[in-house]
């Protein structure tokens, strides 16, 4: 599904991402973990087209998409959320998530080459039955997606996003990404700033998505969630991959413990204790 080969990105003198390889098969959930500044989000940006790699290749379903624009990648079915949560503050919850469905609105892409934009404008003005039906169908779909989050979002469907709590904004972001009907879903710290209960909810939702067959790449600091959900884990530190493999193995990897805690392991003796946490 997704293949990242030797991707690097340099900022000034700093190699933020240094020759990362990563492969993601359909239906897999792979997590990327690592301390602050390890280059996780930069790697996400390189995959989602928000930044261009200085070296390496990104292939999506066998197609070389290195350096594609984000809007083009979205058209190919790649959806993402952002580290600090980027909702459209002045749009309602409903409108935010409707934007997620933009790529499969036929009204937004009339089949008229050259004057497509003009046709889109005219369709928006005239709004024939087909356009109205399409919009209604999208709204129904979005309502369904919002239902995933229980009564967190549904009662606030008309509220502007800036009035939501932080956790709810993160939920809106996930809902918006789902409305894209993603073939590949990139989640950047979906539980950041959430408390235990809220984290558990998100964990459950991500688990359901995985069960439905979604292919997911996840950046997450809450290792409990990572260990429980991931098929494989990639550990980054200083732009490099320092470990990769099934969560069981990664959690016992001394390099990982060192990356998180420092160069001589602190406290309890064995990594097994760490495992007990997760």
């Amino acid at each position, binding site marked *: 599904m997704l293949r990242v080969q030797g991707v690097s990105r340099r900022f000034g003198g700093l190699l933020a991402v240094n020759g990362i390889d990563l492969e993601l098969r359909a239906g897999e959930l792979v997590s990327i973990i690592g301390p602050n500044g390890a280059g996780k989000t930069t790697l996400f940006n390189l995959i989602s087209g928000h930044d261009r790699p200085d070296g390496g290749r990104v292939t999506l379903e066998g197609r070389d998409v290195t350096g594609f624009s984000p809007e083009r990648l979205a058209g190919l079915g790649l959806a993402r959320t952002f580290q600090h949560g980027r909702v459209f503050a002045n749009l309602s919850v409903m409108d935010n998530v409707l934007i997620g469905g933009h790529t499969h609105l036929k009204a937004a892409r009339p089949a008229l080459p050259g004057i497509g934009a003009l046709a889109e404008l005219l369709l928006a003005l005239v709004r024939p039955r087909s356009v109205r039906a399409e919009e209604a169908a999208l709204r129904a779909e979005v309502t369904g997606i919002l239902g995933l989050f229980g009564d967190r979002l549904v009662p606030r469907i008309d509220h502007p996003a800036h009035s939501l709590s932080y956790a709810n904004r993160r939920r809106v972001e996930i809902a918006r990404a789902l409305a894209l009907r993603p073939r590949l879903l990139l989640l950047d710290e979906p539980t950041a700033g959430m408390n235990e209960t809220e984290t558990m909810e998100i964990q459950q939702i991500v688990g359901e998505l995985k069960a439905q067959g979604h292919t997911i790449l996840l950046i997450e600091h809450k290792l*409990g969630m990572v260990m429980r959900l991931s098929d494989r884990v990639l550990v980054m530190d200083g732009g490099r991959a320092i470990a990769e493999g099934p969560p069981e193995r990664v959690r016992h990897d001394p390099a990982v413990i060192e990356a998180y*805690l*420092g160069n001589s392991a602190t406290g309890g003796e064995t990594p097994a204790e760490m495992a007990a946490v*997760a």
Partner: protein
Amino acid sequence: MSRPLLELDKINSFYGPVQVHFDLSLHVNAGEIVCLLGGNASGKSTTMKTILGLMRPRSGTVTFDGQVISGLETPRIIRAGIGSVPEARRLFGAMTVRENLLMGAFIRNDAAGIRDDLARVLGLFPRLHERLGQRAGTLSGGEQQMVAMARALMGRPRLICMDEPTMGLSPRFVDVVLELIATINREGVSVFMVEQNASLALQIAHRGYVLQTGRIALSGPAATLARDPRIRDAYLGGEVAA
């Protein structure tokens, strides 16, 4: 025991709608190195910003040397005797190393004293001697960290606040920087440092606090903390047993 040099009392701070600190209290005694540990997004950096007046707590007070400094503008707090080594160093990249160091003495007006201190600081950081005329932005990460520390010392602070001083440094430089922090401390400057790298920080600190989602989860003498298995739980996101 005498009153602490720096004291945070029941700080509650918010970043937009998100509460970052919940009744956070901690203190630094004169002469101590105290480290504040914690994983990502635990509220460490916000603590630093709160002390330095770059962010205002919604409630609670910060006291330095008996004077309430929460609510003061940052320059006033610096003038009160706190030096800062910011996260990611934040040097003035287009200025030379020498100019950066002298910027550190911005609050002082004793030309002779500044000259002496420059010599003293260069004695501590001999590596910077040959770099004095170079633009700070062209130095390596480790050298930049030294400039940032030397710059903070130039203000003759009684307390230096360091935000992740070892972040992004190669292992060799990490040791150098830690050694320097200990040296600075031996010269009589108290140090409050925020660190992610717990084991390293605890090697040189006297006491430590572990912050987890805005609350102090553990605290105590560095040696005790270093043996406490719960520190790992705090880092890796599990619940800390009370």
